[in-house]
């Protein structure tokens, strides 16, 4: 049979050098080993992408639309000390893994060739770094080019027999560098006969073996640190090289181990499946850095993780696997405040030997804890305690902090000696980070941004590296940036691509005069309605406006008009993407970080008075008893008659001499809103409180002058009621139209255990009862929680009750069952956010869905995919929370600044009691602060803590009993908190 043989079918290809195959073996999760064979087509038309080369221009690939990507690498690349003729850099995998921050620096590292081999390896080693690298290649200014060396015939190499994959990849990198060098030389020769400067293509690697081999083959190669040393701002850049590489060399020497080894992934997975181990997020108590808790799905209450050893290198926020300890090792949660700073002041960043994981003082503190736990009966009952056995996912981010002065060896600014220092993060739950730096002297007294690189078993503290300095401690710029970074708020100015999406007319944009204009299509003309807006004073981004008028049948027509942002922000353009990233506008005391560019937020979308604007209107017919007869949704054009502040509106309503239609409309609204509110409360809506204060600043310098608690007027709740009503109506409509993909907001009922402590405290101290079986019960019993002598007591209880609640969240309708949609706090079956599209992305999405629900325009594909929406929800939930936190932190900073140098006596209330201190809340400034026993008298007074009755009996000279809910007078001064470098209010008992 000479005419057929399968063997022969491959024969012609054996000699064919442009086809190769990649064979590798991989093991699956279930333990099976699979062999994978892939084809590789080797080609010669992959361009070098250097602007020096003409030959490659001809072979540049064209895409379907016949476009060719322009060449990336500059024809005059920057030079350095070692390569005066300029260089193209070819970093190997480890260079990216250790120095990604470095490559992202704007001022250095241009013209970089990323090899496919390297890209693939980076992806295997670290997905986040891979994404950062891919982002870099798309940054035009950085000139990063991905060269697919494995597909180019000249640079492809096959793995030799017995060669390890690492050696093979190193060889591939060298091969590519060599080819590039020859190629560039030839290209320049072809360009002109004259001697020109020929840039070198330089391999960057830290692998000694690789460097040696490169030298032998005379391939330009250099260590990353050596290369950086040759640059101008070398010192700053050198600090950014991850500490990991130095450690690798040192590792061999050190033998002492502080922490138990983490379990292997497969062992943890088996344990979790079998139910002997549990997975959850590691949370550290803000009061006690040694006490962590992990909430696992199996149990209602969180598992405790006590001490550093049990925490086993987990950092707050990591996803960990824990193992429950035997019962005899269970402990009670701490009643004591423990701050890292006070215990480990003297740890040395440089010396690691001779340390134990728990320092002597830490150990003492723990012993006392145990004693206490054993000595008590009910309250201090030992709780299930666990230890961390492994980490599933690190959630390390960049941390803002300051350099611990004590850890700096030489504070001289001129010293360029490299030393190991501690960075103390602002977030108290994060341990100190060891950082190697050459600029310790300069960094003292500055806000510093750093990241954690690794936490080895033999190191007590995590290792990290310096990223950049934000500026002087306590300076407004640095502190604001610090809190924005800490809460991951994107505050950079909008990029050009975003601004390009704005209407070309800019501020001159107007609602088209002719109603035939396409902009008018499907819009109702509501310009004749007497619409007005009511907002906080000085508000420029006006989202909402209202109107009300009597109908002939005795009912009222009420309209809520919301800025039509979705008209300007089309799905999936750059502006929409930026907005979905930002998720929300962040309000700081002196600054607003917008979600949308100013032009839209404060002008074109903003429902400013006296001008015509596009709006999205909800119109109801309402009976005089505030029952809804019908709801109608439409895109519209309105003209607001007036923009009131809450106060102005209140004055106008109260003043009977105003009898114009607009004012009467507002009176109708007010009347209806009160009825709506009552209905809501009857249904079980909660009236919760959070300490809200407003910082008054001097207009020019925005230096804080005074702090005031916010006043609430009737008009506040007027607006609020109708916004709630609009949100509920829209939620119902969207859900009806898109039962799978409607974007909604829910507020889960808090688990009973959340209220346990508060309800017990109220029972013991005040003989009051807090029922928590339904929101109605909570609302009613909260109303009962009053103290005749102390009007503020009720608010205090409400504040504390608020903290027992779950937080509300956005979700996609298809992911939950209908009963789970419920908004507990508002006692509404369904709810969404619709009324603030200028400052919240969720509202914008709701607008788009509503527009599709009323057949105004088709729904974009991104809003039809449940998985995409889930991603959006997840992001905006985080952003929303972060924005709140950043806002609070900003107020905290300004309150601190406002009270700087002051000395005031104020009333406060005891909110929480520990065995060695207590927390006092001062309503006047909305601040809550810790008073420790050692703050009361010079030698820390002895005290007895009666946990059952929430009494702290202080002995010695002070002789005083501190009880929960007690009203105390405190002296307010300010101090710079040593551990975080923040200026904070300090309270002392008078």
């Amino acid at each position: 049979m000479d005419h057929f043989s399968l063997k022969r079918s491959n024969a012609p290809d054996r000699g064919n050098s442009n086809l190769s195959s990649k064979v590798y073996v991989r093991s699956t999760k279930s333990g099976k080993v699979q062999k994978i064979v892939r084809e590789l087509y080797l080609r010669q038309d992959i361009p070098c992408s250097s602007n020096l080369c003409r030959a490659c221009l001809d072979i540049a690939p064209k895409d379907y639309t016949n476009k060719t990507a322009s060449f990336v690498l500059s024809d005059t690349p920057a030079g350095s000390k070692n390569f005066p003729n300029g260089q193209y850099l070819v970093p190997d995998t480890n260079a990216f893994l250790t120095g990604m921050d470095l490559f992202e620096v704007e001022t250095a590292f241009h013209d970089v060739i990323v090899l496919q081999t390297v890209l693939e390896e980076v992806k295997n080693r670290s997905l986040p770094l891979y994404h950062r690298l891919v982002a870099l290649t798309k940054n035009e200014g950085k000139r990063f080019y991905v060269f697919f060396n494995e597909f180019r015939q000249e640079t492809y190499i096959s793995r030799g027999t017995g060669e390890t994959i690492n050696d093979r990849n190193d060889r591939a990198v060298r091969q590519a560098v060599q080819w590039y060098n020859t190629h560039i030389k030839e290209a320049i020769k072809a360009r002109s006969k004259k001697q020109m400067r020929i840039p070198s293509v330089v391999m960057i690697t830290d692998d000694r073996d690789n460097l040696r081999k490169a030298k032998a083959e005379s391939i330009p190669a250099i260590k990353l640190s050596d290369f950086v040393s040759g640059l101008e701002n070398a010192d700053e850049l050198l600090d950014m090289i991850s500490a990991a590489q130095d450690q690798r060399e040192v590792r061999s020497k050190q033998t002492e181990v502080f922490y138990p080894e983490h379990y292997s992934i497969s062992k943890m997975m088996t344990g979790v499946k079998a139910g002997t181990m549990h997975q959850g997020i590691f949370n550290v108590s803000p009061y006690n850095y040694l006490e962590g808790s992990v909430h696992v799905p199996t149990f209602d209450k969180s598992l405790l993780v006590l001490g550093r050893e049990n925490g086993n290198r987990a950092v707050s926020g990591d996803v960990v696997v824990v193992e429950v300890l035997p019962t005899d090792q269970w402990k009670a949660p701490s009643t004591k405040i423990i701050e890292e700073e006070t215990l480990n002041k003297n740890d040395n960043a440089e010396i690691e030997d001779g340390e134990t994981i728990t320092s002597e003082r830490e150990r003492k503190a723990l012993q006392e804890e145990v004693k206490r736990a054993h000595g008590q009966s009910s309250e201090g009952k030992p709780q299930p305690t666990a230890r961390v056995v492994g980490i599933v996912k690190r959630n390390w981010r960049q941390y803002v902090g300051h350099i611990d002065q004590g850890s700096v060896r030489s504070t001289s600014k001129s010293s360029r000696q490299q030393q190991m220092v501690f960075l103390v993060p602002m977030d108290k739950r994060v341990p100190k980070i060891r950082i190697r730096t050459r600029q310790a002297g300069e960094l003292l007294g500055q806000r510093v941004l750093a990241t954690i690189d690794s936490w080895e078993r033999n190191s007590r503290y995590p290792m990290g590296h310096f990223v950049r300095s934000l500026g002087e401690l306590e300076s407004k710029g640095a502190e604001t940036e610090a809190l924005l970074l800490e809460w991951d708020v994107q505050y950079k100015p909008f990029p050009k691509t975003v601004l390009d999406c704005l209407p070309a007319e800019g501020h001159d944009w107007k609602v088209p005069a002719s109603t035939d204009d396409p902009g008018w299509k499907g819009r109702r003309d509501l310009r004749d309605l007497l619409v007005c807006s009511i907002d906080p004073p000085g508000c420029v981004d006006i989202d909402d406006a209202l109107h009300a008028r009597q109908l002939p049948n005795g009912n009222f027509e009420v309209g809520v008009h919301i800025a039509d942002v979705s008209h300007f922000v089309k799905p999936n353009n750059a502006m929409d993407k930026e907005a979905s990233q930002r998720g929300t506008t962040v309000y700081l005391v002196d600054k607003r970080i917008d979600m949308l560019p100013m032009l839209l937020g404060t002008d074109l979308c903003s429902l400013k008075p006296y001008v015509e604007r596009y709006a999205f209107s909800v119109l109801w017919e309402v009976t005089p008893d505030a029952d809804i007869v019908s709801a109608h949704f439409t895109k519209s054009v309105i003209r607001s008659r007036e923009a009131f502040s809450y106060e102005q509106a209140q004055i106008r309503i109260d003043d009977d001499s105003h009898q114009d239609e607009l004012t009467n409309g507002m009176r109708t609204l007010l009347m209806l809103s009160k009825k709506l509110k009552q209905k809501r409360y009857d249904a079980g809506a909660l009236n919760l409180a959070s300490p809200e204060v407003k910082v008054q600043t001097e207009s020019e310098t925005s230096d804080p002058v005074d702090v005031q608690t916010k006043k609430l007027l009737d008009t506040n709740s007027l607006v609020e009621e109708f916004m709630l009503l609009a949100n509920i109506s829209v939620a119902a409509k969207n859900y009806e139209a898109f039962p799978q993909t409607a974007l909604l907001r829910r507020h889960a009922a808090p688990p009973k255990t959340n209220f346990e402590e508060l309800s017990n405290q109220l029972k013991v101290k005040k003989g009051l009862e807090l029922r928590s079986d339904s929101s109605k019960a909570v609302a009613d019993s909260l109303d009962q929680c009053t103290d005749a002598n102390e009007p503020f007591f009720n608010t205090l209880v409400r504040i504390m009750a608020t903290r027992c609640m779950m937080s509300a969240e956005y979700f996609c309708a298809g992911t939950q069952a209908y009963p789970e949609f419920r908004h507990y706090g508002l006692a509404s079956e369904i709810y969404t956010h619709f009324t603030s599209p200028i400052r919240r992305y969720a509202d914008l999405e709701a607008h788009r869905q509503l527009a599709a629900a009323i057949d105004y325009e088709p729904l974009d594909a991104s809003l039809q995919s449940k998985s995409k929406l889930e991603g959006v929800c997840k992001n905006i939930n985080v952003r929303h929370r972060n924005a709140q936190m950043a806002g609070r932190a900003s107020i905290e900073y300004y309150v601190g600044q406002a009270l700087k140098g002051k000395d005031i006596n104020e009333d406060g209330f005891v909110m929480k009691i520990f065995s060695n201190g207590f927390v006092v809340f001062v309503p006047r400034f909305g601040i809550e602060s810790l008073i420790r026993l050692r703050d009361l008298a010079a030698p820390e007074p002895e005290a007895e803590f009666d946990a059952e009755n929430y009494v702290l009996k202080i002995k010695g000279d002070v002789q005083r009993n501190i009880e929960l809910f007690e009203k105390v007078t405190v002296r307010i001064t300010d101090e710079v908190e040593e551990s975080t470098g923040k200026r904070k209010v300090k309270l002392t008992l008078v």
Partner: protein
Amino acid sequence: MTTAGKIVNNEIHLQSIHHQQTQPHQLHPPEHSDGEPETKKQEMPLDTSTYSLALLRLDGRRWNELRRIHAQINTQAAADGSSYLEMGNTKVLCTVTGPAEGRQAGQRGAKDNEAKVEVEIGFAGFSGLERRKRKSDKRTLEMQHTLSTAYSSLLLTHLYPHSTITLTLHILSQDGSMLAACINASTLALIDAGIPMSDYLVACTAASSATTSDSDNSDPLLDLNNLEEQELPFLTVGTLGRSDKVSVLICESRVRMERMESMLAVGIDGCKRMREILDGVVKEYGKRFS
């Protein structure tokens, strides 16, 4: 020789050959046994999202390139018609039996005045990533049905009343574009069997490349391998020879309407090139008899 016996024979024969093929690879030490602590690798190769970086696909092809196509005709002397076709690592063996007298007179559902086209597709246990015997599942049934209807209308079946033409396809190795490979192999085998048909029926696949989060434009990709098929929306298109007449079109993934046009255009273009290749194979074989 009975049909059943032939199949068994082939399988044994092919298995041994496949074994030889994979032998050399096993000489390399498997990657995961390198024993190097710092390279504890979890294979996570690049995926289709890297296409936009340099307009290169996962195996180094451009968007409009077919894989290496290798085809042979008249591979089994005992069959009425046979062919062997490779599209990259997808390997298909096809034999044609017939036109022969139908198994039972008055076949169910078939017209009496024309031939019935029966298709059997068998997956070799070693053809996929994991060794397993594939029972005829819904997917295979659907492929059989597609082939049977396509050829029923293509072949001049009225010339053979009361008879059956049986196409037997053996999938020896799977790496994407299965249906397309089956169609191409069948066309060759039917030509070998000398059954009259109006034109070549050729097929190939086309996909739409992944879009990155920051750009919405995507290129249509031609002739997918297995990895691409898993990640991208794709269609299989079969056309009649040189014409643009689409005779088979199957798309089982969700794809944006506006991308469909370019995918189809590229797919049809691919079919034309495929026809030239198959035509070349047939003519080469024909030279022996001239």
